[in-house]
């Protein structure tokens, strides 16, 4: 029996502006450790909205959510920030690196925030992750000197720094060309197979989704196939 890292039960979400509309309807699913899950669906089906709820950034919903067996209901803003810091790694469609810092520092920042290790140790771990992703040579460059594919790999390294129990991605290949998309996909695959990393990736790229272990398909705010 595998451990469940993420579980949702009866999640409903409404947008109140401009008119009341329900974007998520009774979402009920769970993700086990080591799974590589893709969430697909047409644009506007609510998959990104779901991801933001699962990532604890959006707290305005009905229903229950457990991360690592821990209920998210009733947690304060700073407790949720701590959970995002410690247990969740993010990869967005855009890289969202901080241009004020070097690549290495960008990767280190969530680690420095968590303070589980000393600064030297965090730097070492950041270099290790950059090496795994094959971009250790870029460590001292500024974030805005990198190409799109390189930036996305740095963002993945940053997501990995605190050994999260799950990595969430919001269209991580949506802004990349075919070659870079493949590189990013291969990295995810490698993380899943070699490091037993749990991944939950929202994508509308069918070829990307088909190569994952499990596809959750959404339509009009419901899960239609799981």
């Amino acid at each position, binding site marked *: 029996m595998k451990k469940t890292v993420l579980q949702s039960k009866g999640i409903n979400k409404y947008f109140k502006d401009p008119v009341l509309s329900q974007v998520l309807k009774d979402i009920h699913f769970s993700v086990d450790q080591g799974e590589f899950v893709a969430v697909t669906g047409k644009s506007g089906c609510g998959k990104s909205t779901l991801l*933001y709820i699962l990532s604890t950034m959006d707290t305005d919903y009905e229903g229950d959510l457990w991360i690592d067996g821990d209920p998210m209901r009733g947690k304060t803003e*700073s407790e949720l920030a701590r959970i995002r*810091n410690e247990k969740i790694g993010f990869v*967005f*469609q*855009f890289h969202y690196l901080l241009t*004020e810092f070097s690549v290495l520092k960008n990767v280190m*920042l969530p680690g420095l*925030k968590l303070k589980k290790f000393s600064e030297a140790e965090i730097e070492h771990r950041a270099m290790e992750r950059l090496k795994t992703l094959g971009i250790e040579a870029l460590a001292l460059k500024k974030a805005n000197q990198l190409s799109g594919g390189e930036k996305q790999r740095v963002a993945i390294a940053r997501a990995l720094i605190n050994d999260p129990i799950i990595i969430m991605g919001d269209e991580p290949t949506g802004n990349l060309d075919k070659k870079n998309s493949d590189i990013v996909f291969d990295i995810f695959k490698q993380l899943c197979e070699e490091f037993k990393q749990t991944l939950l990736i929202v994508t509308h790229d069918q070829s990307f989704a088909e190569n994952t272990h499990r596809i959750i398909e959404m339509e009009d705010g419901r899960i239609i196939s799981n």
Partner: protein
Amino acid sequence: MNLKLIADIAKSLLLARWRQSLVAAIGVTFSITMFIALLGFMNGLNDLLDGLVLNRTAHVRLFNEIKPNPHQPINLSSEFKGGHNFIQSIKSSGSRLEIYNSAAIIKAVKADPRVLGIAPKITAPVLYNAGTIDITGVVNGIDVMVESALFFFKDYVREGDPLDLKNVSNSIILGKGVAEKLLAEIGDVVQVTTSKGDRLPLKVVGIFQSGIADYDKVQSYASIATTQKLLGKPNNYITDIQIKLKDLQQAPAVAKEYAQLFQTDAEDIQTANSQFETGSFVRTLISYAVGIVLLIVAGFGIYNILNMMIYEKMDTIAILKATGFSGSDVRKIFLGIALTIGLLGGLLGLLFGFSLSLIIDQIPFNTAALPTIKTYPVNYNPKFYIIGIVFSLVTTYFAGFFPARKASKVDPVIIIRGK
């Protein structure tokens, strides 16, 4: 806990827009510089103007006014005790100018812990004789040592040695105006006649300039013994006792108490020179007001720049939050930026303000009214510097508070979705 990390991020954001940060800091620097220079200069001037009068005025003066005697003989008569007596054509009596029992009074006052020092004085109205002309004037009999210690007498003697007043018998220090009228110089002998008609030749040992021309046209100084000799009075004759207190503010109370205790008239400095305190209070108020307005303007500058920075750094704030920084971390980062600008700008402002004060202190300022002043006066009271730095921090804190709160409330979902 994470202060180092927060400081690190704040520093990076600050340096990423270093030109803007510099402009904000310069705003603070400018205000603090002006604040310090203005207050230093204003207060220097205040001290000077106050000193002009206050330095030379006793805090409490004991004397006997020329006035009708309140104890008329009829009131002492037992026959008329029951009724209310109307007496007409009473004349003032001038016979009691002398303070009786002055030695005992001086001893009692000296023992009072509130009293800093005490200087006896005799005022003698005289005529200076120059050929056929008589010039009215006043000779003040003083103790030079005490007078110098308490009322800075030495500072106002322009020529000659004030100590000669004590060392040379029958000597006088003339006011500048008097000396000009008499064509007298040091070493000359002037004739002085009292109101009773006694005449005494006195040797000029110095020229005195107070800065108040009318005063210098009338006043001159001699030792107490010389004045007593001039008036033909015994050596316990004193007409004034000047008292300097440790705390100026106590003067009215002390004056009231002494008047009752010693049965003399007593005048406090506040009554004698009330307009000076009002003047210096208003001047101080104006300089503080201008300084604080400057700082508030600088505060708005910081507010604007931080607000702009937050709009520019929305993505950064969103990603910091998404990767686990809480709202309070973000708020601390932006408050840190504001306070850094305030502290650096403020410290530089103190430095520039001090330099500007030093420069003002070197500008020549010669005026006949103020013989001891050669350059513009500046007050270097550390109080202004402390107020300056505290106020710069307080202003920048408030200027940073609202933008920082706004930043802490940025919703990462909206920013990330918006792309």
